[in-house]
């Protein structure tokens, strides 16, 4: 795939996933020069960014190094701690394992983007889950915290969409929302390590924002 990529995706395209669905064989992997970098458009917290990225660059480093969004943390750089968790097209993912170039057309939400806009804030500029983390003292060093928060939001959405977990009764009816008991929260957040041991308080904070 040669030749530079001319992004024609509009912000609405990005938001609605149309750009992502469009076959990009015409050069989304376009290579300015050495063939080892590509022009990529990613919407982050509602703002589209078009960047020439080294193909090796993962989303986490794009956020932290290119965009200065250091809320997503690097704890292990290999998908084993969850500190880098962000939402891509609404789903929680480990941003340390996603090549940014493959996310062309995606919409990313990081911890910095949670309190933007009117929805879901409690008037003090925080997302209710951020507020609950403060109320419950659900962190100490704070390094896993953005990942815990993004992961919890993803997990709440998954449960609402009827996604089971390992502790869900296998006989539970498919497609129905799964009630988030403490065991469910613990299992679903187990991809987010916390070495300070804030787990019990994190579970309480998540409970605070359940519908």
């Amino acid at each position, binding site marked *: *795939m040669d030749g530079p990529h001319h992004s024609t995706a509009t912000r609405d395209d990005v938001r609605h996933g149309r750009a*992502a*669905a469009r*076959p*990009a*064989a015409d050069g*989304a*992997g376009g*290579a300015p020069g*050495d*063939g*080892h970098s*590509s022009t990529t458009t990613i919407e982050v917290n509602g703002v589209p960014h078009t960047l020439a990225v*080294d*193909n*090796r660059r*993962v989303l986490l480093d794009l956020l932290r190094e290119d965009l200065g969004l250091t809320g997503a943390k690097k704890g292990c*750089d*290999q*998908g084993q701690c*969850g500190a880098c*968790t962000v939402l891509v097209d609404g*789903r*929680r*993912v*480990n941003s340390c*394992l*996603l*090549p940014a*170039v*493959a996310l062309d057309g995606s919409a990313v939400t990081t911890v910095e983007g949670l309190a933007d806009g009117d929805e879901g804030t409690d008037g003090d500029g925080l997302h209710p889950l951020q507020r609950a983390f403060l109320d419950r003292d659900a962190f100490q060093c704070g390094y896993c915290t953005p990942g815990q928060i993004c*992961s919890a939001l*993803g*997990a709440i959405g*998954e449960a609402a*969409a*009827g*996604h*089971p*977990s*390992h502790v*869900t*009764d*296998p*006989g539970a009816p*498919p*497609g129905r929302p799964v009630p988030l008991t403490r065991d469910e929260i*613990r*299992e*679903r*957040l*187990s*991809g*987010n390590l916390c070495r300070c041991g804030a787990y019990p308080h994190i579970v309480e904070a998540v409970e605070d924002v359940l519908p």
Partner: protein
Amino acid sequence: MKPFAYVRAGSLQEAADAFTARPGARYLAGGTNLMDLMKLGVEQPEALIDVSRLPLDTVEELPDGSLRVGATVRNSDLAAHPVVRDRYPALSRALLAGASGQLRNVATTGGNLLQRTRCPYFQDVTKPCNKRSPGSGCGALEGVHRDHAVLGHSEHCVATHPSDMAVALAALDARVELYGPGGARTVPAARFHRLPGDHPERDTEILPGELVTGVVLPALTAGLPSAYRKARDRASYAFALASTAAVLEVTDGAVSHAGIAFGGVAHRPWRARRAEEALLGATPTRAAFEEAVDLELSAARPLRDNAYKVDLVRNVAVDVLAGLASRTPDRV
């Protein structure tokens, strides 16, 4: 990580062509294992061919009663799929026993099958490993190998396959669909992964340039009681020390179908054929299960520090089978 080119494939043919043009390439789907291995220097592709947007992301019921799962269906979506939960509960349970919510949201069916061992010697490029670097030796054979194989290993490699999903697929008699420069073909899931033998560098039967396009779950095992149980060092987010997937049909008080596969104990999901044969026609009692599983495990050759795995997989397998026989839902 070495610099690499990135190519997004718009069709299967484009993917295959791109590979032909760049034989040192790797296909990229979820990338959760591949990117890790590239960062570690274990994988050094000159190009990534992105197949994540190929139209392989659907689950369809086929007219013959089987279920076709596209290669890029995400593990989380597959585990939550109503038909999978209803007809192949072992598959859903196995998927949910693996990795984390974040990883399952990205990892794909095809990628899960193709993930590499988590053997620490394989992952460390400064140490010998015949799988990573044929002929360099096996660091685990006399090294730290509590997590390694007790069945089917060779002097060249004692690694285990880390997948939970693949264990369920093997027990359920699924088939793996492949597409490559030589065209399309299918391979039984239970024979998709290889034993190490003299060539531990080959994990699977896949040929260079071939791509997993999907997995077909057969009508044969649809709706039969099936379960998956995994034992691990911590309560979640850990690879299996040992696991068992089983599907069991009892007709008129006798076992009429048994599919049993062990995970975490061999270079591939270990389909327990001898146990299955012993159970066919037998009355499904705990004693019968114990006898059958012991027969299977008579082939076990534990290493210096992992004899516990023989007991562990035995207990787990018997527990899973007894649970299925009593029709109690599998509980871990």
